[in-house]
């Protein structure tokens, strides 16, 4: 909607003697997680169980994390946020708060796919896996990642599909594929008992922070204007209008 020149979002470059501090928010799942890292060290991580007011608790939880690290928010070099897919409201609350903080402090932001975090947490070097998040209404969000040289690389997706469509992905894959992610991975593809399943029950904001750090170091940080959520699923109104049925993945916005 607006053409804006990006504000300078300088990040301390590695090797200048200053550690990079990243604050990450992961609220795209029913949990709420906030982590603070300094270079590759996790300083504080706090995870709140699903609860009625968990989205309202985001600002106090951030404050608590900063407090425990005895730091003020202006020490943060880069903000990271789980950009989805997942709960629409959760994604937006995390992103709105992070955009507000980053804008106010003129700091860069990095959005990390919730699927990529699962890959980073559960894949071994040289292996690949299908990362899965429950999309409700009988569908799942899925993407195939491969870990190489310590980095997770997206091989296919992300997409919104019924769990049965995973069969095609597994059949077409070269080599073994693990099924990682939401505990839902234990309940799908019952006819393929040999597929290794790695449930990741609790989301990690630290994974979000450490992945964001790598992005920052590669000069891939964004600013609050350019950061966009990864909804994958379109709004019901768009689905209805497009008349394509809700099982097709929409354009990323």
């Amino acid at each position, binding site marked *: 909607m607006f053409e804006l020149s990006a504000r300078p979002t300088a990040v301390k470059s590695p090797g200048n003697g200053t550690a990079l501090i990243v604050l990450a928010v992961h609220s795209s799942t029913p949990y709420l997680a906030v982590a603070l890292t300094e270079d590759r060290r996790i300083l504080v991580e706090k995870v709140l169980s699903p609860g009625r007011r968990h989205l309202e608790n985001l600002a106090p939880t951030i404050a608590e994390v900063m407090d425990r690290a005895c730091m003020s928010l202006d020490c943060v070099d880069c903000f990271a946020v789980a950009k989805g897919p997942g709960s629409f409201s959760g994604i937006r609350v995390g992103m709105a708060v992070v955009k507000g903080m980053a804008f*106010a402090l003129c700091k860069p932001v990095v959005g990390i796919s919730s699927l990529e975090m699962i890959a980073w947490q559960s894949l071994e070097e040289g292996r690949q896996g299908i990362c899965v998040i429950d999309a409700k209404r009988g569908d799942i969000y899925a993407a195939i990642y491969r870990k190489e040289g310590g980095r997770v690389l997206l091989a296919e997706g992300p997409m919104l599909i019924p769990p049965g469509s995973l069969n095609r992905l597994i059949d077409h894959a070269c080599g073994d594929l693990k099924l990682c992610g939401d505990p839902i991975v234990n309940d799908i593809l019952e006819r393929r008992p040999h597929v290794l399943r790695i449930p990741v029950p609790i989301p990690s904001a630290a994974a979000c922070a450490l992945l964001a750090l790598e992005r920052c170091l590669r000069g891939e940080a964004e600013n609050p204007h350019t950061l966009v959520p990864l909804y994958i699923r379109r709004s019901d109104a768009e689905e209805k209008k497009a008349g394509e049925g809700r099982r097709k993945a929409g354009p990323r916005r």
Partner: protein
Amino acid sequence: MKPARLYVDGQVQFYKTNQDCSQLAESMTVLAIETSCDETGVAVVRNGDVLSNLIASQIQTHAQYGGVVPELATREHLRNLPSLTRLALDSANVQPADLGLIAATRGPGLPGALLVGLKFAQGFAYALGLPFIGVNHHEAHLYSAWVRGKPARAGFESFRPNVSLIVSGGHTLLVHVKALLDHRVLGETVDDAAGECFDKTARLIGLSYPGGPQLERMAKGGNPTAYHFPRPMLEDDTFDFSFSGLKTAVAYFLRDHPDVLDDPEKRRDLCASVQAAIVDVLTSKTVRAAKRVGVDTVTISGGVACNLSLRQALTTACQQAGLTLRVADPVFCTDNAAMVGLLAELKAAHGLPSTDLDAEIEPSLCLGD
């Protein structure tokens, strides 16, 4: 101004309840966010002056669906907010570090839309260690008619106790504003809002979204007495409104006279007659309320207050009743963030407490709350 210190004796300060804003009242610059429905608003105000007031309209997004789609509105707000905030600050020539207070609409409105604006504002306030005030959208409308001039300024020094009519697509309210920040709701709609009635009847007549302004355009040159439609609750002794019956009456009328839609002149007459019915009720009840509570001033705000026919009818009725009418400028009639900022500033100046930074949205917030 340096951002406020985050730590005092090792304690986090920001979410302490009831932070006193009164010491900030002088020369305080306010950043205000409004996202209660389908317009993203960001404004910067200082000492009653509106330094910038920007609105990103989403009409085109929603037009293809024939009405506001909450999920799309929410997505648009999140996309627009940083850019619009940057533009609002730049056009006011203000840096984040110059700000003294952050304000946002807390309700009423669409839950998702409110959530994005509120959380963005809370993140902003927390990062700078600034107080935050969550504002009732309706209460902000009560004061939009006092904002005048170019550049716009809130003329609260000439404030008079008044009866205020807030009339929009979502709400129809009559409020007795006894003094600044002191009000009592006299009546409100028991079903559809007046603007909703405009939109729904416009749809029945076959006009495209947004129907209200289209209906007004069609009504020009039409005969408002060509067809008679009910004036719901006009003779009722309360100050409540009801507009759903009028919509039904139009539906029955069109069932019995389908030919009206094929004749451009009859169509114009129909639009003018529907508009006259709505305007009649709003005007009569507002003037009666002003006389009943004994004020000499009437104000009107909200999207439907842009309707010229309503403005003219109220002007005439107020003149006859010896009342002064203050109509909000069109830019302050529709949803805007300037009114949110001005109300927050007013509250801070009166020493009212700030809102907690973990405050929830209140989609059904009432003016009495």
